[in-house]
């Protein structure tokens, strides 16, 4: 069980939205993690510096929260290691061919009412729910 955290999740979501608006206002870019990561892999985009900086800031954030508030961020990974690696490979291939993930399609694209993003988001949320149902309810969980 994980605790239902509507207020904290709403606050977190608001900050995610704020970062998307700021990145568009200053850099004119979609705050999509897939696009940002892809451009940092070889052949590396010539405009890589802001992307690397964005990633560095994102990685630093939980450390800073811990350092400033001594509030630990809840983290628990119930999935066995081999399945995390298999899941990672599948996610990598999927987001590349799907041209985006939760941040790019689910937040930025949906906010622009992009038909591609609406379709992509409906599909990946759907297959994620079906996958969890199959693993936990039909196969008895990994």
């Amino acid at each position: 069980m994980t605790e239902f955290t509507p207020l904290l999740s709403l606050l977190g979501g608001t900050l995610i939205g704020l970062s998307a608006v700021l990145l568009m206002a200053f850099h004119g870019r979609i705050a999509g993690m897939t696009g940002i990561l892809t451009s940092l892999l070889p052949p590396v985009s010539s405009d890589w510096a802001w992307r690397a900086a964005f990633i560095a800031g994102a990685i630093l954030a939980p450390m800073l929260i811990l350092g400033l508030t001594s509030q630990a961020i809840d983290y628990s990974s119930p999935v066995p290691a081999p399945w995390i690696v298999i899941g990672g490979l599948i996610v990598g291939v999927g987001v590349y061919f799907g041209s985006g993930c939760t941040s790019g399609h689910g937040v930025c694209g949906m906010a622009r009412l992009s038909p591609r993003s609406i379709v992509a988001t409906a599909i990946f949320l759907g297959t994620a729910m079906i996958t969890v149902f199959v693993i936990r309810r039909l196969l008895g969980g990994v």
Partner: protein
Amino acid sequence: MPRTLLAASIGLVFGTGIALSGMANPAKVLNFFDIAGAWDPSLAFVMGGALIVTAIGYRFVLRRDKPVCEAKFHLPTNRKLDVQLVNGSAIFGIGWGISGFCPGGAIPALGLGEISAWAFVGAMLVGIFAARTLRLALDQRVTQTA
């Protein structure tokens, strides 16, 4: 380099949002998907909050001629609903449901120093790289034979 430093600060806001929201916690993400079981609807509030702020903010920002640090806005122009988008998104969802990680959730999770997050991100980067290499190779073959 104010433009780069600014991107780092915006990344910090993004990572803080992800960390507070629970998106960096695979157990919470998987429970959001587990509607028939230990359902935790929190992540609907993450998506809802992010969407409302972005939709309103974009209205104001995209009305301007150009962004502050760049000559123009870089917006996706592809409007086609193609097989690649549908299949790729379906595949992504399967991996998300297996692992409980999406790219935007996993990157800030690296800052928690958890080995499982690092293993996921490593595998995900291999996946993106392999898919992109395949795509570029196929495109090149098409150009050569044409």
